[in-house]
């Protein structure tokens, strides 16, 4: 599947395109097929996302998983500071990244 990510223009937070809006949770990401660049053009003009790009991902039993480790780290947070990730209480969250 293809999904869209970027950073929130004002806060810099990592965000994912849900099909209608943006979410900070990668599991909300929608498969955009071949429409990624069109969506980004519209969203860029809407001034919500900064540096948006389309990436490969797969839907697994644990939810949407970006293909590249860089985007998995973006989705969770720094592996060396689990307390600052989106799943600070999950001791296995780091394994999802690797």
């Amino acid at each position: 599947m293809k999904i869209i990510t970027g950073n929130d223009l004002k806060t810099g937070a990592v965000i994912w395109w849900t099909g209608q809006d943006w979410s900070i949770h990668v599991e909300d990401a929608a498969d955009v097929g071949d429409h990624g660049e069109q969506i980004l053009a519209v969203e860029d003009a809407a001034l919500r996302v900064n540096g948006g790009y389309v990436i490969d991902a797969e839907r697994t039993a644990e939810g949407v998983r970006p293909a590249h480790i860089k985007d998995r780290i973006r989705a969770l947070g720094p592996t060396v500071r689990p307390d600052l990730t989106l799943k600070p209480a999950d001791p296995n969250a780091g394994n999802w990244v690797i």
Partner: protein
Amino acid sequence: MYRYDKYDQAMVDARVEDFRDQTRRRIAGQMTDDQFKPLRLKNGLYLQLHAYMLRVAIPYGTLNSTQMRKLAHIARTYDRGYGHFTTRQNIQYNWIKLEQAPDILAELATVEMHAIQTSGESIRNVSADHYAGATADEVIDPRPWAEMLRQMTTFMPEFSYLPRKFKIAVIAAEEDRAAMRWHDFGLRIVKNDAGEIGFEVYPGGGMGRTPFIAYKARDFLPQHQIFSYLQAVLRVWNRHARRDNIHKQRMKILVHELGEEEFTRQVEEAFQHILKLGSDFPQAEYDRIAAYFAPPPFETRLSDEIDRSDPDFAVWVDQNVAAHKAPGYAIANISLKPIKGIGGDITAEQMEVVADLAERYSFDELRAAHTQNLVLPHVRKQDLYAVWQALVEAGLADANLDLVTDIIACPGLDYCSLANARSIPVAQKIAERFADEARQKDIGELKIKISGCINACGHHHAGHIGILGVDRKGTENYQLLLGGSGDENTTQAKITGPGFDEDGIVDAVERAVEHYRGIREPGERFLDTYRRVGMDGFKEAIYG
């Protein structure tokens, strides 16, 4: 230390308001990202993996307690309670919101700090020996010249749109503690036979994907001609630089392509012309700036004795305390490399402890070292025990300066959008592997430096042991390098062979270290042994 005059303050304040307006216009959609990006970069604001990152300049690594407390306040108020000291004596914050960035810059301006030219194609923060003004082996304090170079190169139109970034380092001692020859423009202050002060000039260095060690272009440049010489260097670079190819824009590439002799010839030609324009500082201006760096009022008749009856304190003194030029004083290094921590990271609370110690025990002075540690430059030996006790309480008393666990590491793929692999977890695993204090002491001085990509922010080219993280078909892979150095005998590390995964690189480092322990001669450091025997034996030990 230098204090802003009304012109400095007015310029920095005006810059804050400029950026506030630029940010407002970007958020309002009156500016595209392509238009805004070079403006935010000139103010040290990057977009990284998880948020915006703000890099704050600490000129030549010198700051006072008021500034450190402000850095703590920013960490607590605008970030997530911590900051990260970098390999160029700066500090950066990882979780900045664009809409708050102008407010942060305004706060910094109240304590004579800014983020100007900490990114972008400009002359970056001038770095210097972090023992400047405290060590006995310097000719003069290099910071007045570092400050003058900072003033010369800030906002100067000719230097504002350079082909690429340009880094300057200034030292004044035989021992190079600033990796001077790994800079675009390295300067060593020397005294000639007539007792005159001048510079050895080293242009053309730099790390990154194409590393070069700066060469000596001048044995002695009279000190008051330095600005003309720097202009000449920049003009030759500006004239020929490959602005069409980002990988060839750094000055080191031009020096390599023209050749040292031809580059020097063109610089000298330009220099003779610029010198006549009379744009160098007069002596009176040097004297005015130098007065800010006058030595603090050291007490006399202090004892050089240190009560070493507490064995843990004695270990710290032996490893982290360096000789000071004034009798009865010492230089106290604060390691930011706890075994399970993140190198260079420091919490807001720890910043405040360090600020308090600087105010109480070090004439209100602090230094940030390019090794991602901090320094209290002027501590009475009789106060060292109290300083150490406070550091213990704050979790800042690791006695590992220059040892195998004092690892330089860039933020890597945990934070950086350019990185290919994570650096910090590798540093942590190596540190844990060598955590035993007796083993560290037995190994002795060993500088491990880790970069998460070829941009080399973790200085892997200069590591006794260097590690470079690469992306191999979507997975992290680590190349091992040996034999680099950033000291006065600067050398570039060489790759040992095929790379390793994260656990494999830790094992490989251990095999290299154990090989050294097995073959070293009395008094040899790891680097000495490597230089004596060469790569082959190490390679065999590492790969079997």
